[in-house]
């Protein structure tokens, strides 16, 4: 499959490239030039500089692709957060519609939907809840991008998978007793879900806009990952539950 990656120079991008490169033909893009080691390692793939706030440029980059994965994000700049997180989604969806690309994977933080009125209050929170992002710049601008994707997926023949993350860790950092937020996944498992998302038959998705919480098997039961397991076949390999094992915080193995 020919896959356009947008925002591929961020934290997530290199992991996704590593997971997809063996089986797909990638067009790896970002607003900045990719790191030299990535270019060297994945030289058989294509690299371009693309700014998601530039609609014609996104349209051009999407030409000939079978799928778009949008990893772009801005968290703090009050102007760019809207232009990248919201307007970028508009450009992605317009490009998909015009280039007849039916498979889009968009990404964001968990509080794109599960903001302060859910988190810290509820348990067993599934991804299919009405978005309550709150008024923070990052979650709200991402949530408006999410809504843009949903609305335009309804209007066009495009299937959007929205993957939401929170805390991402290296496998080696899943130290027993270290603790953390109850929505944690390893980079390796996070990247794997993109491979699954490209493999799934679109007709097997219940609707043209599906949201997935991507987390390991955290023991708290605050957020649910069963939808990703059920629909995508997600099987987290790295044990995040050990982060909360008793006894380990005193230095001993549980």
């Amino acid at each position, binding site marked *: 499959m020919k896959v356009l990656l947008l925002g591929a120079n961020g934290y997530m991008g290199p992991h996704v490239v590593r997971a997809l490169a063996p089986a797909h033909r990638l067009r790896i893009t970002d607003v900045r030039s990719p790191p030299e080691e990535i270019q060297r390692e994945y030289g058989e793939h294509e690299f371009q500089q693309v700014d998601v706030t530039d609609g014609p440029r996104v349209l051009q980059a999407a030409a000939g692709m079978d799928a778009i994965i949008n990893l772009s994000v801005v968290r703090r700049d*009050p102007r760019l957060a809207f232009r990248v997180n919201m307007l970028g989604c508009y450009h992605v969806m317009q490009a998909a519609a015009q280039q007849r690309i039916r498979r889009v994977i968009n990404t964001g933080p968990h509080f794109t939907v599960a903001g302060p009125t859910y988190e810290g209050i509820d348990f067993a929170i599934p991804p299919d809840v009405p978005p309550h992002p709150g*008024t923070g710049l990052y979650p709200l601008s991402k949530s408006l991008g999410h809504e843009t994707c949903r*609305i335009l997926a*309804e209007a066009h023949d495009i299937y959007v998978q929205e993957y939401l993350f929170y805390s991402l860790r290296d496998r080696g950092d899943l130290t027993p007793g270290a603790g953390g937020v109850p929505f944690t996944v390893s980079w390796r498992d996070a990247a794997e879900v993109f491979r699954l998302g490209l493999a799934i038959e679109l007709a097997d998705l219940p609707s043209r806009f599906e949201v997935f919480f991507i987390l390991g098997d955290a023991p708290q039961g605050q957020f649910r990952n069963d939808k990703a397991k059920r629909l995508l076949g997600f099987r987290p390999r790295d044990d995040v539950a050990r982060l909360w094992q008793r006894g380990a915080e005193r230095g001993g193995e549980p």
Partner: protein
Amino acid sequence: MERRRFLQQSGLAVASGAGVLASGTSASGAAAEPLDAPAEVSPKQVLVTAAESPLAQSLADGLPAAWQVHLTAKMDVSTARPFRQCGLEADDATRELVRGMDAIVHLALAAAAEDPGEQIDGLVRATYNVLTAAAAEGVRRVVHITSLALLQGYDAAFAVAEDWQPRPGDDAAALAEYLAECTSREFARQRQLEVVALRIGKVVNAESVAGQAFDPLWVDQRDVSQAVALALAASKLAPARGTAGWTVLHILSDSARARYSVNQARQVLGYRPQYRW
């Protein structure tokens, strides 16, 4: 009777034309109670955005004397009213603009633009910035003016009401207005602002469209002014459902051929449209 007195005192009956409101029936018991505004009390301060638009000018002219109207726009506008040009960016200028205001009438209607993406970004970002500033400066109420185009995805056979999910479709202007409304809703949900979202139809002047083919989305600009004045003045909003602090109402004529019902606005605000076709 209390409502009638308020409307007369505030000048709304005159602004709405022909004294029709003064001779109308009083509001139902379910309607919001207006704040009394004795003549000796200093006027409250209200900021109206998008001052370059005819609707903003019309609202400024139509609001009762209980409100001192300040205008703002991203471009320079010639007006006799207090006016400040402001880009509504995330900066001190926007904070200073809203400082001291009791309320804001934010016209969150997508302006015509060559680039649909810029249309979306411009409206939504300005909305976020003005609401963030308003929350920080302790502004109590925002009347968020948006459009019934948010519901254009529904078949005309349906009697669509305020509690139907918006369906703006692939229209950049309607999408921009929908996203701006989502933004306001979060400020209300977080109890940072009290927001009354008025989704309005196509604003016209009844006299100027006389003889034209009827449009079921028509609303006279004076009826919009009436709705905004009521939304500003209501001391206690009583939506049939939903969160306190978040009220959505449809504002157009109450013509039997109108596309949407105004019953909710009638019940919550005591809205009585005076122009019908």
